[in-house]
Protein backbone atom coordinates (compact mmCIF):
# COMPACT_ATOMS: atom_id res chain seq x y z
CA UNK A 1 0.00 0.00 0.00
CA UNK A 2 2.49 2.66 1.15
CA UNK A 3 6.17 1.67 1.41
CA UNK A 4 9.19 3.75 2.40
CA UNK A 5 12.78 2.50 2.06
CA UNK A 6 15.67 4.46 3.61
CA UNK A 7 13.63 7.62 3.11
CA UNK A 8 15.61 10.79 3.89
CA UNK A 9 14.93 14.49 3.55
CA UNK A 10 17.27 17.31 4.45
CA UNK A 11 16.54 20.93 5.24
CA UNK A 12 19.75 22.89 4.73
CA UNK A 13 22.38 21.31 6.95
CA UNK A 14 20.30 18.92 9.03
CA UNK A 15 18.45 15.74 8.28
CA UNK A 16 14.77 16.40 8.97
CA UNK A 17 14.16 12.70 8.32
CA UNK A 18 16.93 10.13 7.98
CA UNK A 19 16.68 6.54 6.65
CA UNK A 20 13.03 6.01 7.51
CA UNK A 21 11.82 2.57 6.39
CA UNK A 22 8.31 1.29 6.90
CA UNK A 23 5.46 -0.56 5.25
CA UNK A 24 1.88 0.60 5.86
CA UNK A 25 -0.50 -2.19 4.97
CA UNK A 26 -4.19 -2.04 3.99
CA UNK A 27 -6.61 -2.65 6.81
CA UNK A 28 -4.17 -1.58 9.51
CA UNK A 29 -3.71 1.61 11.53
CA UNK A 30 -0.03 2.50 11.73
CA UNK A 31 0.92 5.18 14.23
CA UNK A 32 4.05 7.29 13.97
CA UNK A 33 4.83 8.81 17.36
CA UNK A 34 7.45 11.37 18.30
CA UNK A 35 8.05 14.62 20.10
CA UNK A 36 7.86 17.97 18.32
CA UNK A 37 10.58 18.34 15.71
CA UNK A 38 11.16 14.60 15.48
CA UNK A 39 10.40 14.66 11.75
CA UNK A 40 6.74 13.64 11.84
CA UNK A 41 5.51 16.49 9.68
CA UNK A 42 8.36 15.93 7.23
CA UNK A 43 7.28 12.31 6.88
CA UNK A 44 3.69 13.45 6.28
CA UNK A 45 4.90 15.96 3.69
CA UNK A 46 6.87 13.23 1.89
CA UNK A 47 4.04 10.69 1.82
CA UNK A 48 1.48 13.34 0.82
CA UNK A 49 3.74 14.42 -2.05
CA UNK A 50 4.36 18.01 -0.90
CA UNK A 51 8.08 17.28 -0.37
CA UNK A 52 10.48 15.36 -2.55
CA UNK A 53 12.80 12.78 -0.89
CA UNK A 54 16.51 13.72 -0.85
CA UNK A 55 17.42 10.03 -0.70
CA UNK A 56 15.65 6.73 -0.51
CA UNK A 57 12.57 5.32 -2.22
CA UNK A 58 8.88 5.85 -1.57
CA UNK A 59 5.96 4.15 -3.25
CA UNK A 60 2.36 5.21 -2.61
CA UNK A 61 -0.48 3.00 -3.85
CA UNK A 62 1.93 1.36 -6.25
CA UNK A 63 3.33 4.61 -7.71
CA UNK A 64 7.09 5.09 -7.35
CA UNK A 65 7.40 8.73 -6.32
CA UNK A 66 10.87 9.09 -7.83
CA UNK A 67 9.47 8.93 -11.33
CA UNK A 68 7.74 12.32 -11.16
CA UNK A 69 4.24 13.62 -10.47
CA UNK A 70 1.55 11.24 -9.27
CA UNK A 71 -1.27 10.15 -11.58
CA UNK A 72 -4.78 11.36 -10.67
CA UNK A 73 -5.83 7.89 -9.50
CA UNK A 74 -3.12 7.93 -6.83
CA UNK A 75 -3.93 11.52 -5.86
CA UNK A 76 -7.60 10.78 -5.21
CA UNK A 77 -6.67 7.40 -3.70
CA UNK A 78 -4.66 9.01 -0.90
CA UNK A 79 -6.67 11.10 1.53
CA UNK A 80 -4.51 13.65 3.31
CA UNK A 81 -5.44 15.51 6.49
CA UNK A 82 -2.66 17.99 7.17
CA UNK A 83 -1.96 19.57 10.54
CA UNK A 84 -3.76 22.74 9.41
CA UNK A 85 -7.40 22.09 8.33
CA UNK A 86 -7.90 22.74 4.61
CA UNK A 87 -10.74 25.26 4.79
CA UNK A 88 -11.82 28.60 3.27
CA UNK A 89 -13.01 30.90 6.10
CA UNK A 90 -15.51 32.76 3.93
CA UNK A 91 -17.33 29.61 2.78
CA UNK A 92 -19.78 27.81 5.04
CA UNK A 93 -19.00 24.39 6.53
CA UNK A 94 -21.26 22.66 4.01
CA UNK A 95 -19.74 24.50 1.05
CA UNK A 96 -16.21 23.66 2.21
CA UNK A 97 -17.12 19.98 2.44
CA UNK A 98 -18.74 19.98 -1.00
CA UNK A 99 -15.67 21.68 -2.50
CA UNK A 100 -13.20 19.19 -1.03
CA UNK A 101 -15.34 16.21 -1.95
CA UNK A 102 -15.76 17.41 -5.54
CA UNK A 103 -12.04 18.24 -5.85
CA UNK A 104 -10.92 14.83 -4.62
CA UNK A 105 -13.67 12.57 -5.98
CA UNK A 106 -17.30 12.78 -7.03
CA UNK A 107 -19.65 15.66 -6.16
CA UNK A 108 -21.51 15.22 -2.87
CA UNK A 109 -25.22 14.39 -2.70
CA UNK A 110 -27.00 16.61 -0.19
CA UNK A 111 -28.03 13.48 1.76
CA UNK A 112 -24.42 12.28 2.10
CA UNK A 113 -23.30 15.79 3.06
CA UNK A 114 -26.01 16.08 5.69
CA UNK A 115 -25.27 12.70 7.23
CA UNK A 116 -21.51 13.41 7.31
CA UNK A 117 -21.97 16.78 9.02
CA UNK A 118 -24.44 15.24 11.42
CA UNK A 119 -22.00 12.44 12.28
CA UNK A 120 -19.30 14.92 13.20
CA UNK A 121 -21.76 17.08 15.14
CA UNK A 122 -21.72 20.11 12.83
CA UNK A 123 -25.25 19.94 11.42
CA UNK A 124 -26.29 23.06 13.32
CA UNK A 125 -23.26 25.09 12.23
CA UNK A 126 -23.33 23.78 8.61
CA UNK A 127 -24.70 27.03 7.18
CA UNK A 128 -22.40 29.38 9.15
CA UNK A 129 -19.17 30.66 7.60
CA UNK A 130 -16.14 28.58 8.59
CA UNK A 131 -14.59 31.79 9.90
CA UNK A 132 -16.91 31.59 12.91
CA UNK A 133 -15.81 27.99 13.75
CA UNK A 134 -13.63 27.19 16.76
CA UNK A 135 -10.44 25.14 16.28
CA UNK A 136 -12.28 22.02 17.44
CA UNK A 137 -15.13 22.60 15.00
CA UNK A 138 -12.65 23.10 12.14
CA UNK A 139 -11.07 19.79 13.11
CA UNK A 140 -14.47 18.13 13.04
CA UNK A 141 -15.05 19.57 9.58
CA UNK A 142 -11.79 17.97 8.47
CA UNK A 143 -12.88 14.68 10.04
CA UNK A 144 -16.07 14.84 7.96
CA UNK A 145 -13.78 14.40 4.93
CA UNK A 146 -13.04 10.85 6.12
CA UNK A 147 -16.69 9.98 5.48
CA UNK A 148 -17.04 11.96 2.26
CA UNK A 149 -13.88 11.13 0.30
CA UNK A 150 -14.96 7.60 -0.53
CA UNK A 151 -12.34 7.17 -3.32
CA UNK A 152 -9.52 7.28 -0.78
CA UNK A 153 -7.97 3.81 -0.31
CA UNK A 154 -5.36 5.11 2.11
CA UNK A 155 -5.46 7.91 4.66
CA UNK A 156 -2.67 10.06 6.01
CA UNK A 157 -3.68 11.85 9.24
CA UNK A 158 -1.43 14.49 10.86
CA UNK A 159 -2.51 15.01 14.49
CA UNK A 160 -6.16 14.08 13.81
CA UNK A 161 -7.29 15.05 17.32
CA UNK A 162 -5.91 18.57 17.66
CA UNK A 163 -8.26 20.91 19.50
CA UNK A 164 -10.81 18.17 20.18
CA UNK A 165 -12.54 17.50 23.51
CA UNK A 166 -12.94 13.99 24.96
CA UNK A 167 -16.08 13.43 22.87
CA UNK A 168 -14.07 14.49 19.82
CA UNK A 169 -11.42 11.93 20.70
CA UNK A 170 -14.08 9.26 20.79
CA UNK A 171 -15.27 10.41 17.36
CA UNK A 172 -11.75 10.07 15.95
CA UNK A 173 -11.42 6.56 17.38
CA UNK A 174 -14.76 5.51 15.83
CA UNK A 175 -14.05 7.02 12.44
CA UNK A 176 -10.53 5.61 12.15
CA UNK A 177 -11.71 2.17 13.26
CA UNK A 178 -14.38 2.25 10.54
CA UNK A 179 -11.68 3.14 7.98
CA UNK A 180 -9.57 0.21 9.14
CA UNK A 181 -12.46 -2.24 9.11
CA UNK A 182 -13.31 -1.18 5.54
CA UNK A 183 -9.81 -2.31 4.46
CA UNK A 184 -8.16 1.09 4.12
CA UNK A 185 -4.56 1.77 5.21
CA UNK A 186 -4.35 4.50 7.85
CA UNK A 187 -1.08 6.26 8.69
CA UNK A 188 -1.62 8.38 11.78
CA UNK A 189 0.98 10.81 13.05
CA UNK A 190 0.40 11.92 16.61
CA UNK A 191 2.12 12.69 19.86
CA UNK A 192 -0.98 11.87 21.96
CA UNK A 193 -0.28 8.52 23.64
CA UNK A 194 -3.97 7.84 24.47
CA UNK A 195 -5.03 8.01 20.85
CA UNK A 196 -2.17 5.79 19.71
CA UNK A 197 -2.96 3.08 22.30
CA UNK A 198 -6.62 3.05 21.37
CA UNK A 199 -6.09 2.71 17.64
CA UNK A 200 -2.61 1.67 16.57
CA UNK A 201 -1.94 -1.90 15.33
CA UNK A 202 1.64 -0.94 14.50
CA UNK A 203 3.56 1.86 16.20
CA UNK A 204 6.83 3.49 15.06
CA UNK A 205 8.72 6.02 17.16
CA UNK A 206 10.68 8.87 15.61
CA UNK A 207 13.53 10.57 17.45
CA UNK A 208 15.50 13.38 15.86
CA UNK A 209 14.45 12.33 12.38
CA UNK A 210 15.37 8.67 12.83
CA UNK A 211 13.49 5.53 13.73
CA UNK A 212 14.13 4.83 17.39
CA UNK A 213 15.41 1.22 17.73
Amino acid at each position, binding site marked *: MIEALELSRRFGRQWALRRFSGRFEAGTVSAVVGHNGAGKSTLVGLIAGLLRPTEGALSVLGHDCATGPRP*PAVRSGLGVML*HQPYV*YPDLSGAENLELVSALYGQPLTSKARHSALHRVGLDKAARRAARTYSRGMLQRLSLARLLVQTDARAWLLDEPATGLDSEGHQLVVELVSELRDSGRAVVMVSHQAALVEALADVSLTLERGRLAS
Partner: protein
Amino acid sequence: MTAKTIWLILRKDVLIELRTREVLTSMALFAVLIVVVFAFAFSLDETRAKLVGPGIIWVTILFAGTLGLYRLFDRERDHAAMSGLLLAPAGPLAVYIAKVLGLVIFITVTEIIVLPLMLAFIGVPLPLEGIPLFALALLLGVLGFSLVAVLFGGMLASTRLREVLIPIVVYPVVVPVIIGGVKLTGAAMGDGLPGEADNWLRLMAGFDIIYLALCPWVFTRVMVE
Protein backbone atom coordinates in the same frame (compact mmCIF):
# COMPACT_ATOMS: atom_id res chain seq x y z
CA MET B 1 -11.63 16.07 -14.46
CA THR B 2 -9.41 19.09 -14.98
CA ALA B 3 -12.23 21.17 -16.47
CA LYS B 4 -14.44 20.32 -13.49
CA THR B 5 -11.69 21.32 -11.07
CA ILE B 6 -11.05 24.58 -12.92
CA TRP B 7 -14.75 25.38 -12.63
CA LEU B 8 -14.77 24.45 -8.93
CA ILE B 9 -11.79 26.63 -8.06
CA LEU B 10 -13.07 29.54 -10.16
CA ARG B 11 -16.57 29.28 -8.68
CA LYS B 12 -15.03 29.21 -5.20
CA ASP B 13 -13.00 32.36 -5.84
CA VAL B 14 -15.97 34.21 -7.35
CA LEU B 15 -18.28 33.04 -4.55
CA ILE B 16 -15.90 34.23 -1.86
CA GLU B 17 -15.48 37.52 -3.74
CA LEU B 18 -19.24 38.05 -3.95
CA ARG B 19 -19.42 37.54 -0.19
CA THR B 20 -16.49 39.65 0.87
CA ARG B 21 -16.23 42.04 -2.14
CA GLU B 22 -12.76 42.64 -0.79
CA VAL B 23 -10.78 42.31 -4.01
CA LEU B 24 -12.96 44.39 -6.31
CA THR B 25 -13.40 47.30 -3.93
CA SER B 26 -9.66 47.54 -3.25
CA MET B 27 -8.80 47.27 -6.96
CA ALA B 28 -11.46 49.78 -8.13
CA LEU B 29 -10.67 52.28 -5.38
CA PHE B 30 -6.95 51.95 -6.06
CA ALA B 31 -7.48 52.50 -9.80
CA VAL B 32 -9.58 55.63 -9.35
CA LEU B 33 -7.06 57.06 -6.87
CA ILE B 34 -4.19 56.54 -9.30
CA VAL B 35 -6.09 58.31 -12.08
CA VAL B 36 -6.88 61.26 -9.81
CA VAL B 37 -3.24 61.52 -8.76
CA PHE B 38 -2.08 61.35 -12.39
CA ALA B 39 -4.66 63.93 -13.44
CA PHE B 40 -3.31 66.36 -10.84
CA ALA B 41 0.32 65.49 -11.58
CA PHE B 42 0.03 66.16 -15.32
CA SER B 43 -2.52 69.01 -14.96
CA LEU B 44 -4.28 67.69 -18.02
CA ASP B 45 -5.75 69.84 -20.76
CA GLU B 46 -7.32 68.74 -24.02
CA THR B 47 -4.22 68.24 -26.15
CA ARG B 48 -2.02 66.68 -23.46
CA ALA B 49 -4.78 64.39 -22.28
CA LYS B 50 -4.80 62.57 -25.61
CA LEU B 51 -1.03 62.11 -25.36
CA VAL B 52 -0.95 60.94 -21.70
CA GLY B 53 -4.40 59.38 -21.31
CA PRO B 54 -3.63 55.89 -22.70
CA GLY B 55 -0.51 55.72 -20.55
CA ILE B 56 -2.47 56.51 -17.39
CA ILE B 57 -5.13 53.91 -18.20
CA TRP B 58 -2.63 51.12 -18.74
CA VAL B 59 -0.47 51.96 -15.73
CA THR B 60 -3.64 51.87 -13.65
CA ILE B 61 -4.56 48.47 -15.07
CA LEU B 62 -1.07 47.19 -14.33
CA PHE B 63 -1.04 48.30 -10.69
CA ALA B 64 -4.64 47.34 -9.98
CA GLY B 65 -3.97 43.94 -11.57
CA THR B 66 -0.96 43.41 -9.33
CA LEU B 67 -3.06 44.27 -6.29
CA GLY B 68 -5.68 41.79 -7.44
CA LEU B 69 -2.98 39.15 -7.89
CA TYR B 70 -1.78 39.52 -4.29
CA ARG B 71 -5.39 39.26 -3.01
CA LEU B 72 -6.10 36.24 -5.17
CA PHE B 73 -3.21 34.28 -3.68
CA ASP B 74 -3.49 35.59 -0.11
CA ARG B 75 -6.62 33.54 0.18
CA GLU B 76 -4.65 30.37 -0.61
CA ARG B 77 -1.81 31.13 1.74
CA ASP B 78 -3.45 30.71 5.14
CA HIS B 79 -4.97 27.35 6.16
CA ALA B 80 -2.59 25.48 3.83
CA ALA B 81 -5.16 25.84 1.09
CA MET B 82 -2.59 25.95 -1.68
CA SER B 83 -1.27 22.48 -0.82
CA GLY B 84 -4.86 21.22 -0.68
CA LEU B 85 -5.37 22.43 -4.24
CA LEU B 86 -2.03 21.19 -5.56
CA LEU B 87 -2.62 17.69 -4.16
CA ALA B 88 -5.99 17.44 -5.90
CA PRO B 89 -6.21 14.90 -8.76
CA ALA B 90 -6.31 17.66 -11.37
CA GLY B 91 -3.06 19.01 -10.03
CA PRO B 92 -1.35 22.36 -10.57
CA LEU B 93 -2.55 22.86 -14.18
CA ALA B 94 -6.16 23.32 -13.09
CA VAL B 95 -5.08 25.67 -10.32
CA TYR B 96 -3.12 27.77 -12.81
CA ILE B 97 -5.91 28.06 -15.39
CA ALA B 98 -8.52 28.78 -12.71
CA LYS B 99 -6.39 31.54 -11.20
CA VAL B 100 -5.69 33.11 -14.61
CA LEU B 101 -9.41 33.18 -15.43
CA GLY B 102 -10.12 34.54 -11.94
CA LEU B 103 -7.62 37.39 -12.36
CA VAL B 104 -8.91 38.22 -15.86
CA ILE B 105 -12.47 38.40 -14.51
CA PHE B 106 -11.46 40.56 -11.56
CA ILE B 107 -9.48 43.02 -13.71
CA THR B 108 -12.21 43.17 -16.37
CA VAL B 109 -14.90 43.89 -13.78
CA THR B 110 -12.69 46.59 -12.25
CA GLU B 111 -12.21 48.10 -15.70
CA ILE B 112 -15.93 48.16 -16.39
CA ILE B 113 -16.48 50.01 -13.12
CA VAL B 114 -13.53 52.36 -13.37
CA LEU B 115 -12.87 53.10 -17.06
CA PRO B 116 -15.85 55.42 -17.63
CA LEU B 117 -14.70 57.38 -14.57
CA MET B 118 -11.12 57.43 -15.83
CA LEU B 119 -12.07 58.69 -19.28
CA ALA B 120 -14.11 61.42 -17.64
CA PHE B 121 -11.34 62.43 -15.24
CA ILE B 122 -8.70 62.51 -17.94
CA GLY B 123 -11.15 64.17 -20.32
CA VAL B 124 -10.20 62.06 -23.32
CA PRO B 125 -12.93 61.63 -25.98
CA LEU B 126 -13.17 57.94 -26.92
CA PRO B 127 -15.00 57.97 -30.30
CA LEU B 128 -17.63 55.29 -30.79
CA GLU B 129 -15.85 53.55 -33.65
CA GLY B 130 -12.71 53.33 -31.47
CA ILE B 131 -14.41 51.20 -28.82
CA PRO B 132 -14.00 47.73 -30.48
CA LEU B 133 -10.26 48.26 -30.93
CA PHE B 134 -9.98 49.53 -27.36
CA ALA B 135 -11.90 46.51 -26.03
CA LEU B 136 -9.73 44.12 -28.03
CA ALA B 137 -6.57 45.79 -26.72
CA LEU B 138 -7.89 45.51 -23.17
CA LEU B 139 -8.74 41.85 -23.61
CA LEU B 140 -5.37 40.88 -25.13
CA GLY B 141 -3.46 43.02 -22.65
CA VAL B 142 -5.25 41.78 -19.55
CA LEU B 143 -4.98 38.14 -20.67
CA GLY B 144 -1.26 38.52 -21.33
CA PHE B 145 -0.67 40.23 -18.02
CA SER B 146 -2.67 37.60 -16.12
CA LEU B 147 -0.85 34.67 -17.73
CA VAL B 148 2.53 35.99 -16.59
CA ALA B 149 1.38 37.46 -13.27
CA VAL B 150 -0.34 34.26 -12.11
CA LEU B 151 2.69 32.18 -13.07
CA PHE B 152 5.06 34.25 -10.95
CA GLY B 153 2.43 35.15 -8.32
CA GLY B 154 1.62 31.49 -7.71
CA MET B 155 5.25 30.50 -7.63
CA LEU B 156 6.39 33.23 -5.28
CA ALA B 157 3.23 33.41 -3.13
CA SER B 158 4.74 31.31 -0.36
CA THR B 159 8.05 33.22 -0.11
CA ARG B 160 8.64 36.13 2.29
CA LEU B 161 9.85 38.31 -0.55
CA ARG B 162 6.81 38.15 -2.81
CA GLU B 163 5.93 41.88 -2.64
CA VAL B 164 9.52 42.67 -3.68
CA LEU B 165 10.05 39.91 -6.20
CA ILE B 166 6.78 39.79 -8.10
CA PRO B 167 7.01 43.35 -9.53
CA ILE B 168 10.72 43.00 -10.39
CA VAL B 169 10.04 39.82 -12.32
CA VAL B 170 6.59 40.44 -13.80
CA TYR B 171 6.86 44.02 -15.08
CA PRO B 172 9.84 43.53 -17.44
CA VAL B 173 8.08 40.54 -18.99
CA VAL B 174 4.74 42.29 -19.58
CA VAL B 175 6.32 45.44 -21.08
CA PRO B 176 5.42 44.45 -24.68
CA VAL B 177 1.76 44.08 -23.74
CA ILE B 178 1.71 47.37 -21.86
CA ILE B 179 3.31 49.31 -24.72
CA GLY B 180 0.97 47.57 -27.16
CA GLY B 181 -2.03 48.46 -25.04
CA VAL B 182 -1.01 52.09 -24.84
CA LYS B 183 -0.43 52.34 -28.58
CA LEU B 184 -3.71 50.65 -29.45
CA THR B 185 -5.61 52.80 -26.96
CA GLY B 186 -4.03 55.84 -28.64
CA ALA B 187 -5.08 54.52 -32.03
CA ALA B 188 -8.60 53.91 -30.71
CA MET B 189 -8.71 57.53 -29.63
CA GLY B 190 -8.04 58.63 -33.18
CA ASP B 191 -4.30 59.50 -33.43
CA GLY B 192 -1.54 57.13 -34.54
CA LEU B 193 -0.92 55.62 -37.99
CA PRO B 194 -3.52 53.08 -39.19
CA GLY B 195 -0.90 50.46 -40.22
CA GLU B 196 0.76 50.48 -36.79
CA ALA B 197 -2.33 49.20 -34.99
CA ASP B 198 -2.20 45.87 -36.88
CA ASN B 199 1.43 45.33 -35.91
CA TRP B 200 0.65 45.90 -32.26
CA LEU B 201 -2.35 43.56 -32.42
CA ARG B 202 -0.17 40.87 -33.93
CA LEU B 203 2.50 41.40 -31.27
CA MET B 204 0.00 41.19 -28.39
CA ALA B 205 -1.69 38.14 -29.86
CA GLY B 206 1.72 36.50 -30.28
CA PHE B 207 2.56 37.39 -26.70
CA ASP B 208 -0.60 35.74 -25.42
CA ILE B 209 -0.13 32.61 -27.50
CA ILE B 210 3.51 32.15 -26.48
CA TYR B 211 2.77 32.50 -22.77
CA LEU B 212 -0.42 30.43 -23.05
CA ALA B 213 1.85 27.61 -24.20
CA LEU B 214 4.84 28.23 -21.91
CA CYS B 215 3.37 29.28 -18.55
CA PRO B 216 1.33 26.13 -17.80
CA TRP B 217 4.39 23.99 -18.59
CA VAL B 218 6.57 26.01 -16.22
CA PHE B 219 3.88 26.27 -13.51
CA THR B 220 3.21 22.53 -13.37
CA ARG B 221 6.92 21.76 -13.21
CA VAL B 222 7.75 24.38 -10.61
CA MET B 223 4.84 24.18 -8.16
CA VAL B 224 5.37 20.48 -7.39
CA GLU B 225 8.67 19.93 -5.53
